């Protein structure tokens, strides 16, 4: 299987969760230890410092790392911090950024149409994935406003969130969840049986979470080899290949 992690982070955190990867080289060392060739990566500074600083850092650090694919963080356009939408998408194309993330609580904004309407309409058309932490009420409202938006929810709680996200899997074909914290016994096989293998993506949640737990769970999920390959990396590669910058 060609693993492609949809949820990894590097950079020096203000409050280390434990061992962390300060640099891409350290992240790659952990990926190699676990047999993961590629990852979609964020820089800690995107969340803990500012999107402007973090986006620049993740681009610079991954510029010569073909195995690491940078993600950028968004903030509302109304403050001018991201420039114009046209400039933003041009910059993404220049830096080969094919997915974005958002930290609405940390960066103090609401993730809705009032705040992000034109940007999310454009992201829907361009099929740019939006990677979010679980706020199920917020995500449910967001998808009602932008049903064609490609969304990947990562690191949802291990305290059984199926009752929150399964209605979204059923309703919205471009809604996905990652497996980083999805260790529900039989959960992956059960979700695949109901919704097919295309809606789950392997994520490690590193460095908060141990990289190998989710990996072995997917590798031995009791589903077909094709389904495992899709979750391990095929789905993410397909989503990124669909992005139109």
């Amino acid at each position: 299987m060609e693993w492609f992690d949809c949820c990894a982070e590097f950079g020096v955190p203000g409050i280390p969760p434990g061992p962390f990867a300060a640099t891409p080289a350290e992240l790659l060392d952990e990926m190699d230890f676990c047999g993961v060739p590629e990852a979609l990566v964020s820089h800690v500074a995107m969340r803990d410092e500012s999107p402007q600083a973090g986006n620049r850092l993740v681009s610079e650090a991954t510029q010569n790392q073909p195995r690491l694919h940078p993600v950028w963080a968004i903030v509302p356009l109304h403050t001018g911090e991201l420039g114009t939408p046209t400039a933003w998408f041009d910059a993404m194309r220049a830096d080969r950024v094919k997915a974005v993330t958002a930290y609405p609580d940390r960066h103090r904004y609401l993730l809705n149409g009032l705040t992000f309407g034109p940007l999310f309409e454009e992201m829907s058309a361009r099929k740019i994935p939006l990677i979010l932490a679980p706020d199920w009420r917020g995500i449910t409202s967001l998808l009602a406003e932008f049903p064609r938006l490609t969304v990947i929810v990562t690191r949802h709680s291990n305290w059984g969130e199926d009752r929150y996200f399964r209605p979204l899997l059923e309703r919205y074909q471009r809604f996905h969840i990652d497996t980083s914290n999805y260790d529900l016994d039989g959960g992956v096989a059960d979700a695949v049986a109901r919704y097919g293998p295309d809606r789950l993506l392997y994520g490690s949640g590193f460095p908060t979470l141990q990289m190998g737990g989710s990996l072995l769970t997917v590798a031995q999920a009791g589903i077909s080899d094709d389904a495992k390959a899709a979750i391990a990396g095929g789905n993410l590669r397909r989503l990124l290949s669909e992005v139109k910058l």
Partner: protein
Amino acid sequence: MTNNSTIAKEFVARGRSEVCPIIDMHGHYGTFSGIYFPNPYAEQMLGSMDRAGVSAIVCSSHAGLCDQERGNREMAEVVKKHPGRFYGYRVINPNHPEAARREVDRYPQDPGFVGFKFHPSGHSYSIAGEHYVPALEYANEHSLIVLSHTWGHSQYDGPKLVAEVAAKYPQATIIMGHSGYGEWDVAFAVAREHDNVYLDLCAAYRVNGVVARMVNEVGSHKIVFGTDQPWFDPHYCAGSVCFSRITDDDRRNIFHRNAEKLMAPFVQT
């Protein structure tokens, strides 16, 4: 993959190790509030266990966390039906002290039980409280295992409270369920300082670096494998152990050797 562990390679290739079975010291049974379980019952749990090479699991009934007498009867039936694969903890609910005492009195009647299960946080009652005393005294007298939920900084089952209980009942084996999650330094010190205290990986395994810290700061001889099954897939815990930077000897201790030692007096064939 640069991980040279023979055991890790076996688990990745086949989902289990032929030479390194797993004994799960922290299981439950049945449905529970607030979560959907695809595999809540014995036959389903056995399927997951077989795929991961889990030879035996020690469980407490979810029902018992509310009604201990009904739940423990349910658990006894499962253990009786699957000897050698399922073992039981008798749940003690200190909020019903008379029923708790009856459950202590009933302890000898059901083979395949290894001790008691406490959930002080879930019951909002301190592990050091008087209503747990009959079970602790019985466990101490008969060298039984007490698996207690523990959580960092909890007023009911934080690791410092576990230390008090462990010191008072040295013949009972105390397994710190979840290893005092989040208050790692204190939990590890308690496990180091008390011969009768073990760390349980359940849920803790997911936290990056914690397995290696346990091994380095306490020793792999004091760590047991746990999943809360039917909550958590044994492969997630196994993967966390396989991909921690520890030795295969440590992995064997965690996966089965320590549990075999603890379970030796209770083994059913």
